[in-house]
């Protein structure tokens, strides 16, 4: 097996007396999709924030294998290096599209921002790339100059995905990308994500409370409760034969359509 892309060890975060994340650790390999599931308040989003460096950890480390193949402790990176990594090799798709997009800037500008951030200074090329990416996430080309405020919830999430993938990242973090969307829109979005992940060989950490999303997208699953990982394994294994009582409850509580 190849060396892991991301190695998380003993991540811990306290908010006062409350433990949001308690010694969470896992390894993620290139091209692997890991689902983090659990109920609200189980520490899923905090975990994602810790990995992305947006929340300062109380203990633990996040090690990432850079493009040159050298694993680096992310806490030891300078701000310039960290930010460069975040906008080239990583993506972050937010639950609330308004946080992940520039709502006052057109769709094309949103997709082009990362390109301009890494030094692209040719308008024609930026626009062509933006149009190409909008097509790949199934947004019509004639919406390229509309701001996301005029987009539906599903389109905003698609735009976020395009904006993040335009620089060809190797790792994408997704925080509940399908929540708040109706079922048919969800299905199409999941289909798009699954296609892109397979096509680009992305490693993904997807946080979700929806077990169907985990089933559809992920290879492995991490079940969290109260800031702890209580069960982990292959997705089908965990969902079909849950060992921990809480996981059994979680699986059993899914309504059959």
């Amino acid at each position, binding site marked *: 097996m190849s060396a892991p892309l991301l190695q998380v060890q003993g991540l811990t975060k306290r908010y006062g007396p409350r433990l949001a994340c308690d010694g969470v650790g896992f390894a993620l390999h290139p091209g692997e999709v890991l689902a983090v599931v659990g109920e609200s308040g189980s520490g899923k989003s905090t975990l994602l924030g810790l990995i992305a460096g947006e929340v300062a950890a109380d203990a633990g480390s996040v090690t990432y294998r850079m493009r040159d193949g050298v694993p680096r402790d992310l806490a030891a990176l300078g701000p*310039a290096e960290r*930010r460069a990594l975040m906008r080239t090799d990583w993506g972050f798709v937010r639950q609330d599209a308004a946080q992940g997009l520039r709502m006052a800037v*057109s769709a094309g500008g949103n997709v082009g921002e990362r390109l301009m*951030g890494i030094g692209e*200074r040719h*308008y024609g090329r930026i626009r062509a790339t933006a149009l190409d990416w909008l097509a790949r996430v199934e947004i019509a080309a004639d919406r390229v100059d509309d701001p996301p405020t005029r987009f539906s919830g599903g389109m905003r999430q698609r735009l976020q995905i395009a904006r993040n993938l335009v620089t060809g990242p190797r790792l994408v973090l997704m925080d509940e990308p399908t929540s708040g969307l109706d079922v048919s829109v969800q299905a199409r979005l999941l289909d798009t994500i699954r296609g892109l992940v397979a096509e680009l060989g992305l490693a993904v950490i997807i946080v979700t409370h929806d077990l169907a999303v985990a089933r559809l997208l992920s290879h492995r699953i991490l079940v969290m409760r109260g800031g702890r990982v209580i069960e982990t394994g292959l997705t089908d294994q965990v969902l079909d034969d849950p060992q921990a009582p809480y996981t059994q409850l979680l699986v059993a509580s899914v309504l059959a359509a």
Partner: protein
Amino acid sequence: MSAPLPEQGYNFAYLDEGTKRMIRRAILKAIAIPGYQVPFASREMPMPYGWGTGGVQVTAAVLGRSDVLKVIDQGADDTTNAVSIRRFFGRTAGVATTTRTTEATVIQTRHRIPETPLREGQILVYQVPIPEPLRFLEPRETETRQLHALAEYGLIHVKLYEDIARHGHIATTYAYPVEVAGRYVMDPSPTPKFDNPKMDDCPALQLFGAGREKRIYAVPPYTRVRSLDFEDHPFRVQRFDRPCALCGAEGVYLDEVVLDDRGGRMFVCSDTDHCEGRRAEGFTGEQAA
């Protein structure tokens, strides 16, 4: 060129010496780091914010007794703001004032750079309303400071991208962002982009004061100032399809003057000193009276 008697009871150039020293320190730092916005303890001035309190403080700090001061507002020496500030320093510093660009040693300006090329030894002081070029794209000051510190200027190109996407060309005509000495991106204050090329490699010292925002920045003499653009949409200044109606000057920035309520209008030099100088030399335009 008159030097009226200064008012009694004021320190030279209104501000106290401690304040002037503080501002001079900020100016020196600004000159040392071209284009970098240096915070300073902006004072209350006897005029409202937005009327040039930053420029006035910078002028007060650099003014000496032998200086000759010129103040322009939109290129004109005779508008209210220009006249008031000129009189202010006439009364509180007793320095000589002028409207002639060539005679001035310190020129405070709002919106224009004089058409007459500046020379070594002159200081051009800009009044700046919003010093942060990234402000309308990124509202957080903590974040814009990071972006400047790390020279992450992709965002400013997003603004230019939006212009082209919407208008087919870069439609920003004033406060057009520039890169100074290959490092900091700077807002040249709301000067028309027509004047941007004059900032590049200019022999005079250019100082920028933002009173409300409490920032000073500078472009030292002979510094490279490059207007940002795209490879396939290069920076261009606006062109006028007619000469000045009074002095016949071409290649200068013109103001539109409405003459009557039947659509009559004329285009005249925005730089009044330049226009008067040319007319004194005998140049005339089509509507010269």
